[in-house]
Every structure is written in structure tokens, then in C-alpha cells.
């Protein structure tokens, strides 16, 4: 058999092959990059957003024609409502010296929750059935105020593994403390950390923990010490916080609320239309990139062919037949494609390493960037190459032909 590989490799010595390889690799990266951008928006904005609890929580005003008990029972019976709490004991900020370091203030946000409305627990358990003080915290945890957490990086993570199953003492102040710096308005509460939940990737939930009803009820009650009138007012004029089973069920619950005559609003409004528009733009960018890159790679292949045309004719003059020359040309196309992929692989690995280093060592905003290995993008590139190889092969089917 003819040593086709050897005969192909001579032409690969061309210096322009390196420039072509770099240009084509960059073109491929544009396709993979724009596909990543498209997927990023798909996953990050659309899907991940729906994993953030606040996007499927509703704030509901009391119906004045019903008693508190009737309101509570009506809301409780709405399908897909997993938890009802009162806005006055819905969320709070508490502090622990255990979490206080030179990096962190030790403050955390807590939210009223039930087992039905907790996010996915990845370590430990959800709330036990008995009466006690329990909490679940995020697996990526920064005990710091919301405004500051975006300045941390992944390596700053406060590891809660050793605290799982243990009680942590938190302190907080009553509302009167700011007016009257009296220790009687300073309180402590031991809360057992029972589980760790999976963070939503696109929101800053790293300082948000969920506590059971009793915990936040008792905290709130203490906060209203010497403000009994205000506390009673809150109890008599409740505004409700509803947890819905999932993002997809929110509209159904809203319809039920409307039917039942309640005023409501979403705790965190997620604009799907805006995100869909961005997603459509990302799709368009990606599709345009595919077309442009296809043409670009086609032109590179043609330029290459015209540079090597004389070689193929020379082979025919020296006695190689058309079939043998076509095989040599075809192998040369395959080898070039392989080399381009190799270049892309190297550049991609380097880029991934750079991103990984950035996300570990640099601010939090960057660490929310996830490296998504998108097979769609790579599949598109493979298809572009296959079409170009076949097209070039078809166009130049008379390669090296003499007029004999």
C-alpha cells in the first residue's frame, strides 16, 4: 500500500498551516464560546433562577372580612402551598461569635421555613418533628451581610461540616435596644444545625439559613420585648408569606388567591420575558456565529487547496492516478482538522484553568460563572468540519487532473 500519510505530511510543512490552525482554532472557540453564552443564559438565568426559593414565594394581604384563623385556614388549603408564615416573623438577622472571624462579621439571614418548603438538603437532615430550635444553612456559606458577600471568593468558604448536628449559640437584640442600650434587650438562642442545602448558583444566598417556625417565632417575640402593643398589632393585622411547592406552580396559586379575593405579590419577581429575550439574542448570536465560521473555515480550506494545487498536479505528472491523489488530499484534510482540534483543546484547557483560578481566588461575582462543558458547541464544530471536508472534497474531485 502507498504510504499516503508520508505523502500528506510533506505539505503539512507549510508555515501557513500554523497560521491557519490558529485562525481556525479561534473561529472554533467563537462557536463554542457563543454556545456557552447561550447555554449560560439558558441554565443560569432561566433554570437556576427557578431554584431560588424567593422566586416562588408570595406575600399575601389579609382579607378583612375573615378572621385570622379563617384567613390562615383558607390559605393553608390552597393547592401547592407548602408553608404559611407571618411577615412579622418571616425573616431576621442574627449573629454568632462562632462565625465571627477577621473575614466575616458573623451575621446571617434567617428565614421561616417548614420541611415542605426547604431547598435540596445535600448533607445532614431537614427539621426533626419535635419541638426545638433547628436550622439548615447553605453548603457554600459566608456568615456576612448580603451587601458584602459578593466580594468574597470560593476559597473564603466557611466550612460548616464540623458544626453539623451541633448547637450554635446566636445572639440578637430586641427592637428596644437601639433606644435603650440595656442588656435586658440582648438575647441568645441555641440553634441546632441539622442540614446543609445546595445553593442556587445565580443568587447570593450564601448567608441565608432556614429555621423552623418555633425558632423564628421565639426570636421575634423576644425582639418585641416592651413593645407588646406593636406585637399585638402585628398579630392582629398579619401579612402572610406563602411558600409554593415550585416555581412552575406559582401562577396556579396566584389564580387561586385571586379567586379567593386576596391581594398578593411575588417576593422576588423574575422577569421571564426579559430573560427569554436575552436567550433569543444569545441564540441568534450563536446561529450567526455558526454560519460565519462555516464560511470562514470553507475559505481557509480553499486557500489551502490552491496553495497545494501544484503539488497534486505534480503527483499526477509523476504517475499518481486521480484516486491516489484524492486519498492524499482527503487525508490531508483530516489531519488538518485533527490538528485544529488539538489547538482548540489546548486553548480550551488553558482557558478553563484560567477561569478556575479566577473563580477560586477572585471575587464572588466571577465565582458564579460556571464552567459548562457544552457538547452542543463541540458537536456543531464537528458538523462544520464534516461538511467542509465533504464540500471541499466534492468541489475538488478533479484534483490534480491532467487533460488526458
Amino acid at each position, binding site marked *: 500500500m502507498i504510504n499516503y500519510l508520508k505523502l500528506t505530511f510533506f505539505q503539512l510543512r507549510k508555515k501557513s498551516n500554523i497560521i491557519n490552525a490558529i485562525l481556525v482554532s479561534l473561529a472554533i472557540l467563537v462557536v463554542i464560546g457563543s454556545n456557552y453564552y447561550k447555554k449560560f443564559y439558558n441554565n443560569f438565568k432561566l433554570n437556576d433562577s427557578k431554584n431560588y426559593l424567593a422566586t416562588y414565594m408570595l406575600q399575601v394581604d389579609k382579607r378583612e372580612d375573615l378572621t385570622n384563623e379563617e384567613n390562615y385556614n383558607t390559605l393553608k388549603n390552597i393547592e401547592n402551598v407548602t408553608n404559611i408564615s407571618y411577615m412579622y416573623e418571616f425573616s431576621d438577622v442574627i449573629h454568632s461569635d462562632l462565625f465571627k472571624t477577621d473575614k466575616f462579621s458573623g451575621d446571617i439571614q434567617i428565614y421561616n421555613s417548614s420541611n415542605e418548603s426547604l431547598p435540596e438538603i445535600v448533607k445532614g437532615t431537614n427539621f426533626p418533628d419535635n419541638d426545638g430550635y433547628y436550622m439548615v444553612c447553605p453548603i457554600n456559606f459566608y456568615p456576612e451581610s448580603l451587601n458584602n458577600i459578593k466580594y468574597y471568593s470560593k476559597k473564603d468558604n466557611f466550612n460548616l461540616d464540623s458544626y453539623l448536628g451541633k448547637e450554635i449559640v446566636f445572639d440578637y437584640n430586641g427592637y428596644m435596644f437601639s433606644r435603650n442600650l440595656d442588656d435586658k434587650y440582648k438575647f441568645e438562642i441555641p440553634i441546632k444545625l441539622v442540614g446543609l442545602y445546595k445553593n442556587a448558583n445565580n443568587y447570593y444566598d450564601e448567608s441565608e439559613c432556614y429555621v423552623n417556625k418555633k425558632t423564628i417565632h421565639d426570636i421575634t417575640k423576644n425582639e418585641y420585648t416592651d413593645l407588646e402593643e406593636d406585637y399585638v398589632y402585628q398579630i392582629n393585622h398579619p401579612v402572610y408569606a406563602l411558600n409554593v411547592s415550585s416555581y412552575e406552580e406559582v401562577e396556579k396559586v396566584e389564580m387561586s388567591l385571586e379567586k379567593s379575593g386576596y391581594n398578593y405579590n411575588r417576593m422576588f419577581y423574575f422577569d421571564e420575558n426579559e430573560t427569554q429575550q436575552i436567550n433569543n439574542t444569545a441564540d441568534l448570536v450563536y446561529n450567526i456565529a455558526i454560519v460565519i465560521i462555516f464560511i470562514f473555515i470553507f475559505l481557509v480550506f480553499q486557500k489551502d487547496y490552491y496553495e497545494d494545487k501544484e503539488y497534486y498536479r505534480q503527483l499526477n505528472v*509523476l*504517475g499518481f492516478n486521480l484516486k491516489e491523489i484524492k486519498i492524499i488530499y482527503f487525508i490531508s484534510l483530516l489531519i488538518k482538522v485533527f490538528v485544529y482540534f488539538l489547538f482548540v483543546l489546548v486553548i480550551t484547557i488553558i482557558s478553563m484553568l484560567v477561569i478556575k483560578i479566577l473563580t477560586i481566588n477572585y471575587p464572588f461575582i466571577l465565582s458564579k460563572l460556571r464552567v459548562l462543558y457544552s457538547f452542543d458547541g463541540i458537536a456543531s464544530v464537528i458538523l462544520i468540519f464534516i461538511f467542509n471536508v465533504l464540500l471541499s472534497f466534492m468541489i475538488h474531485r478533479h484534483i490534480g487532473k491532467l487533460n*488526458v
Partner: protein
Amino acid sequence: MITIKNIKKSYKKGNHRVEVLDNVTYSFKSNSLYCIIGKSGAGKSTLIEILGLLIKEECGSINIKGREINSLNEFEKAKVRNKEIGFIFQDFYLNPLMKAYENVMLPMYLDKNITNKKRKEKAYELLKLVGLVDRETHFPKELSGGEQQRVAIARSLANNPNIILADEPTGSLDSESTVAVLNILKCLSKENKCVIIVSHDDRVQKYADVVLKLEDKKLKEKDK
């Protein structure tokens, strides 16, 4: 060795058809060096390309060592080119990306019975034969015109063909290189080969055993 009979060839130029060869008949023998002369545009290069099976005649026949070539298909003609004919061109026609010995080896790749080591050895021998020693691993751009033409001659001998066709082989060379190349071709013609040279160069005629003139679309022997 190679016989042509009633060869006709014309080209389309604009709306007209220009006849270049009209019933050209000749028999080229081995152990001879032929020089084909003629005015510019007379059809010398066309004739040599027909002899080398690089272009197709309109009518007529070509016979190489008693074998009718016209009826052969493209694959078979390529084989004949590889085995029976060696080519030398004015602009050397070497591959710039191959070293001297690799250029010489190129026609040998079609012989599946020979190992790469043997091909390389043979290439080195042929380069030595044409007076190129210590230049085997040079690329064409690192060689002078004369040296490049000698590489082309060595390549033309790769498969030990019986026919050598040279189209203006000295056209790009200085006097010294011209003499060297012509000496090599003369020696080859004495080794049972048929060497046919197309040239304007008067010096080539002095080396030729037979001088042929292509005039008025016909080929005639000229008195030396």
C-alpha cells in the same frame, strides 16, 4: 522506443481554433538524444506534453515500446508515466517543501515492493550520479538553479524509465550549469534511453544525435 503517428492538436483561442500540430509522425529510438527546435509558439511544448501523456492528442496514435497508448484510461496512462517516462522542466518543478532526496524519492512511492530505506538509498545514489553530494538534505531554495535541475534529472531517473522528456531544461541555467546538465543527458542517452529535449538553446543541438524542427505544424529532421 516511442512512435507517434498522425498526431493532430489544436487549441481554442477566442472564437477561433488554432491548429498546432498537423499529422505529425515520427519514431524516436533508444540510445539517442533528440533535440526539437522551432520558433516560439510552433508547438514544441505541446508535442512534448503529448509524448509525455500530459495532454491528449485530438487524433493520431502513440506507441511506447510496441504498446498502443491511446486506448489506455487515465489510471493506466499514469502508470506508464510513472514507469516509462521521466520528466525535466524548465522551472525544475520541484516540491519546495521536500528536501532534495525526498523530491527524488517521490515517483518511487508508487512501487509498493520497495522499502522506504531502499528508496532513500536509491535517491542518494541518483543524486551522486548527477554530481550532487552533500546536498541531499537541502531544500530547493537552498540550491542553485543548476543544482535544482540536477535534482530534477535524478528524480526523472527514479524508476529507471526508458524515455526522458526535457522541456527547455537549460532555460533557467547559467553556462556552466547548462554544460553540466547537457553532459548528464548525453550520458543517459547512451544508456539505452531515449532522451528528447525541446530547446531554443543552440548549445543543445550540438549534443543531439538528431535535430528535429517543428515548422508549419510538422516535424522534420534537420541537417546538423
